[in-house]
């Protein structure tokens, strides 16, 4: 009954997501740590589904990590974002899709602030013109890249080579979904499913054959905390938050974790390694960790891509036991080939 109630609430928090014609901007963290995920995103939408996603080399960081580490002022980050919007306008696009959750949250916050304080938007327009001779229109639609994959989840399922199912038992894999805090905690109406019951990753997992694990600290932050990770003396904050989540999910025996935020998969992956080194504790089967994936990586596995083409060798927690559970073919010897 409780699960049914949640499904009803989720269904009330849907948002319209355009099908096509997006201006695509990349994520600093994902390009560093999960580069193949962005490659696969564009391959899925462009090559498999023949959709129009445009990228220009002239876009830059949005400045979000610096802004949330308080090293640049709000006016600076707004002008950088206005420049990104100008690049979109110059290219003739109206739908804007960000690979990064920090960026998505920041864009949402900025558009909301400009709505309430139009004089600030006017000032930023002036700043942008004086510094770059550029002009911008605001996006008509702002999406996170996971919104797009959520929208396309059934089309991906229709081309699937594998399902998120244990090949031996036929049972769905138990999947923990972790949503980046800035996806919808600030502006719940901007995320699929709102802040309390986000459905963006759950929808993908259900469509691809898995089963979502509900656990007490499901909505707790991974612990990035910007300055709390970036400064060595503060890093215990980050580790402690991830530890709290794993202790909470442990009794539910998840097979895998899927995320939609740049930093979260890095922290959930690497802090498992640190917890093992410090405490000797592991959370997966047979002394292994629980593998952590981006949503594009999971889509790629379902579609039958080679795991090393997806960049899964860049994870610290080995993914091979999960690949074996699903029955995905791969070469052990190719993993670290360069």
């Amino acid at each position, binding site marked *: 009954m409780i699960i049914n109630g949640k499904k009803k609430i989720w269904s009330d928090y849907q948002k319209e997501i355009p099908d096509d014609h997006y201006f695509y901007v990349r994520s600093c963290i994902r390009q*560093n740590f999960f580069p193949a995920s962005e490659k696969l995103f564009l391959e899925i939408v462009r090559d498999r589904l023949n959709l129009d996603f445009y990228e220009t080399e002239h876009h830059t960081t949005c400045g979000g990590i610096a802004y949330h580490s308080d090293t640049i002022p709000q006016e600076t980050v707004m002008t950088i974002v206005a420049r990104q919007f100008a690049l979109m306008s110059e290219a003739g696009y109206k739908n804007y899709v960000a690979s990064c959750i920090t960026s998505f949250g920041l864009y949402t916050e900025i558009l909301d602030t400009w709505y309430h304080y139009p004089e600030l938007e006017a000032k930023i327009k002036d700043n942008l013109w004086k510094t770059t001779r550029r002009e911008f229109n605001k996006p008509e639609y702002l999406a996170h890249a996971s919104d797009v994959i959520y929208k396309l989840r059934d089309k991906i399922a229709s081309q699937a080579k594998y399902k998120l199912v244990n090949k031996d038992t036929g049972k769905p894999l138990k999947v923990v979904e972790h949503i980046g805090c800035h996806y919808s905690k600030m502006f719940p109406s901007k995320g699929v499913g709102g802040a309390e019951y986000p459905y963006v990753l759950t929808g993908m997992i259900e469509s691809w054959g898995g089963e979502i694990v509900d656990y007490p600290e499901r909505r707790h932050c991974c612990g990035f905390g910007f300055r709390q990770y970036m400064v060595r003396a503060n890093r215990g904050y980050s580790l402690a938050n991830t530890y709290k989540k794993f202790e909470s999910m442990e009794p539910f025996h998840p097979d895998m974790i899927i995320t939609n935020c740049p930093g979260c998969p890095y922290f959930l992956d690497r802090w498992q390694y640190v917890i093992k080194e410090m405490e000797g504790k592991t959370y997966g089967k047979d002394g292994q960790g629980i593998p952590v994936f981006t949503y594009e990586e999971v889509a790629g596995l379902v579609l039958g891509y080679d795991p090393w083409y997806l960049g899964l060798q860049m994870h610290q927690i080995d993914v091979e036991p999960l690949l074996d559970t699903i029955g995905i073919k791969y070469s052990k010897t190719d993993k670290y080939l360069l």
Partner: protein
Amino acid sequence: MGKLLDKLNKDYRFLEGLNACINCGTCTAICPAAEFYKYDPRIITDTVQSKNEEEIEKLLKSDTIWYCGECMSCVTRCPRKNAPGLIIMALRTLSMDTGLFINSEKGRQQYALSLALNNNILNYGYCVYPRTFKYKDHPEYGPVGKWIENNLDALHKKVGSNLDGQGPGILRKIPDEDLQELKRIFDMTGATERMDTIEKYSLSKAQELGMTKEEYLNYIETTIEIEHHK
């Protein structure tokens, strides 16, 4: 109103973040930082709401305002639509603008953050850039991280990156003209001024402690001298 509160009232995040706090403590209950540090966003919100200049100045000099992780979990749950996370951002800005950040251990860390993140933006166009993200500074990167660092170019090529290459793509070289635009934005909108302010107070503090810049940076990045935790 006092001069600190006047300045806070010019920050849009303060205006957006503070409505009428009813001191329910929901923000503190949900806050990841409050569980880890001696930190209570309810008290922060109540303090700024009190308009007490002395108490606000104490906050600006304290470690307290630097404990928040800006996850914004508080925003979702506040029944009165306050945003303690945004109030924190306004307080941090004022602490840096006034130089009061130099009085706290956590505040002094802004120098390391400013150099690392802002120089990445100005030099490369990214907040995080693989050639400046070093395993020696991030042992949690793990053995795989060490392997990635040792094979950076070959690995990125294999997984489809365009590391430092021309044209679009993953980790492409951001063209110089775009970096120049970022620099002009920094100069006009206060980022360069903030960097200079942080550096001025930090180098002065380093001199007071008898440290070189490098020694001071290592000190603020690695040293924990007081008890921050519950």
